[in-house]
């Protein structure tokens, strides 16, 4: 008969308490009790939507936005050249969860879906049934992807968990959440384009009334909310919820996809106006594909974003203090990352843009292994598709042969500076056809090549040397023909191979 240690017992009790208040996780707590004797290290992915590595002080940003992540970094592997596979939630999350690039999983559109033949190739499946698999996609678009993998997930918390106002209709139909959200929340009752003549205006009126009644206390720019769906939440409720949920987990793989710091940027009062400082990044030339936002708008948006990031970091600090107290770091891989970044330059705000510059593609990745006490910095290029093979590896599973990523350095992999990794943006085209209008960026060694196809009569390239020009200001494509030729051939060959099944003969 296996013995249960005092520590395990205390954790079991900790796991049972939240189950009383959150029935969705009751079954998880029960299973944790049963599995406690054979517990494996937890893997907890904390993903922050639209968190650009470029705006985090842990990665050298001049504003002190993330002192708590800096503290966390002292016990973690810090990946400095980590890149998102896509530039908004749908493709980027799908890549992270399937370990494949957008040209393979084909979830490239707004509200897009992972193609049916890829659905079984997901991180929850790769982790296997020996683990409890929990997902909390607070961003509804992430839920549209995660819920496609529902049969491989033991506990799927709704997007409204820990929310303040919730008028999401689809998640009230648990057996068909994905299509119900697509039908009801994305179409019939979509606030700005109602397709329901009678119930639509009534429900909208109720939602806006409840949102208006919501106390704005603590949030001078309004309570944070989901930009596209009728959901409001307070950061403190969200993180308090996680502080209750996570310490109770055992032998669990948890994918926690948090909506902040996605727009609208609504910092808590203690951080509001925190960065009314003299920091004015050098304006970059406005790109022809940008939305041509003025420099003052970019600076204001950047400040609001930075203040929101600082608010979130403060909550992360509290959460990690709880993790420390409850021993979570001793038995868990804690992974902090993002799906994609956010941009405040070249005339562009936010991330749904054809532009794939560093603020959009460079995302944080910090991984603390169980019991890790020292910091390790990794500078070799890594990509979001690398998380799936790495998680499979650390959970004792084989690396799936379909995975397009590799093991992360420091967690079974080695630093490879000559490896090519990609980011893909193709939201305007059919996912069932060739990606005829797209932007693709390729990182290889010190170089980054960006390819624009389908936007203009002639396709174009940009080439940057990230070592000497990390701000991507000097396009070397015309000046370095040999490197340009070699890299563009590789990019076009890879793209052409990936797109081949969709090109009509």
């Amino acid at each position: 008969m296996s013995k249960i240690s005092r520590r395990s017992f205390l954790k079991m009790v900790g796991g049972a308490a939240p189950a009383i208040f959150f029935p969705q996780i009751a079954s998880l707590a029960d299973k944790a009790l049963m599995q406690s004797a054979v517990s494996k290290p937890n893997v907890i992915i904390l993903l922050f939507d639209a968190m650009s590595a470029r705006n985090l002080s842990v990665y050298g940003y001049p504003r002190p936005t993330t002192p708590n992540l800096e503290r966390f970094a002292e016990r973690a592997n810090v990946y400095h050249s980590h890149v998102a596979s896509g530039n908004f939630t749908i493709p980027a999350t799908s890549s992270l969860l399937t370990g494949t690039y957008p040209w393979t999983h084909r979830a490239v559109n707004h509200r897009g879906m992972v193609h049916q033949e890829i659905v079984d190739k997901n991180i929850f499946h790769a982790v296997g049934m020996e683990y409890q698999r929990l997902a909390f996609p607070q961003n509804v678009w992430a839920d549209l992807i995660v819920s496609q993998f529902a049969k491989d997930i033991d506990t799927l918390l709704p997007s409204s968990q820990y929310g303040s106002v919730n008028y999401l209709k689809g998640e009230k139909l648990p057996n068909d959440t994905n299509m119900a959200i697509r039908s009801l929340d994305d179409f019939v009752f979509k606030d700005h384009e109602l397709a329901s003549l009678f119930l639509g205006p009534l429900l909208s009126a109720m939602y806006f009334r409840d949102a208006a009644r919501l106390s704005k206390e603590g949030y001078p720019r309004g309570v944070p909310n989901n930009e596209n769906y009728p959901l409001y939440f307070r950061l403190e409720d969200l993180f308090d919820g996680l502080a209750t949920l996570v310490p109770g987990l055992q032998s669990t793989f948890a994918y926690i996809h948090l909506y902040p710091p996605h727009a609208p940027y609504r910092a808590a009062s203690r951080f509001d106006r925190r960065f009314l400082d003299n920091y004015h990044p050098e304006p970059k030339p406005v790109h022809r594909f940008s939305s041509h936002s003025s420099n003052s708008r970019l600076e204001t948006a950047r400040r609001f974003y930075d203040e929101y990031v600082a608010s979130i970091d403060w909550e992360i600090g509290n959460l990690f203090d709880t993790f420390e107290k409850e021993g979570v770091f001793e038995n868990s891989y804690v992974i902090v990352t993002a799906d994609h970044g956010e941009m405040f330059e070249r005339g562009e705000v936010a991330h749904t843009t054809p532009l794939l510059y560093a603020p959009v593609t460079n995302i944080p990745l910090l991984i603390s292994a169980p019991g890790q006490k020292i910091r390790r910095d990794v500078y070799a290029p890594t990509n979001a598709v690398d998380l799936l093979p790495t998680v499979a590896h650390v959970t004792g599973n084989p690396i799936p042969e379909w995975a397009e990523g590799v093991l992360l350095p420091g967690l079974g992999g080695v630093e490879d500076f000559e490896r090519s990794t990609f980011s893909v943006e193709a939201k305007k085209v059919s996912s069932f056809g060739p990606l005829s209008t797209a932007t693709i960026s390729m990182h290889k060694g010190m170089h980054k090549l960006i390819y624009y196809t389908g936007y203009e009569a002639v396709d174009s390239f940009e080439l940057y040397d990230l070592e000497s020009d990390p701000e991507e200001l000097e396009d070397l494509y015309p000046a370095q023909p040999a490197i340009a030729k070699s890299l563009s051939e590789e990019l076009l060959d890879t793209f052409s191979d990936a797109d081949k099944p969709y090109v009509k003969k």
Partner: protein
Amino acid sequence: MNVTSRIPSLKQLAPVYSVIVVAVYGFSMVRFFWRVPSLINYSTVGQVGVIFSYTAVVNLLESLIIVLAPIVLSMILPGKWFFEQFVAKGVLLVSLGLGYFGYISSHINTEEEFPYLLVKWSPLVFIAILVLVFFLSRIKLLSKFLEWVAEQLEVFLFISLPVSAIALVVVLIRNIF
């Protein structure tokens, strides 16, 4: 005349319901077919069909709720006021009422621009509609015209009801199994 005797017959209900169906389903379907080109970028035909099914089920529910308004008015008001001209008055009531909902709907754009004023005034608007409805008996030509239009629209029931029934089965199956 007791309350139950003022419940309209199916023959009276059908033309009024058909006006509701045309307005409610029409409003959704125009938007649905406007959305199809973007839907097919990432959805299979089956998935588009499921979205159509959910839409039709919501429309069925809405139309059944709306048709209760003329039925209840007919039951609670003296026969002369509503029941005796159920079709014409019912058609005018639901047409103007749904027209106002459509007007509100067209003004819902963003949180800041939510048409609170239109919602706030809606009780008065509906009282005004009721007053118009009661005066309808004095305009015989309009009554005849409304009855004629409603009769022409009854053909849509032969489409909407079977389609809604199939849609309801689709939605139930997806949510039960």
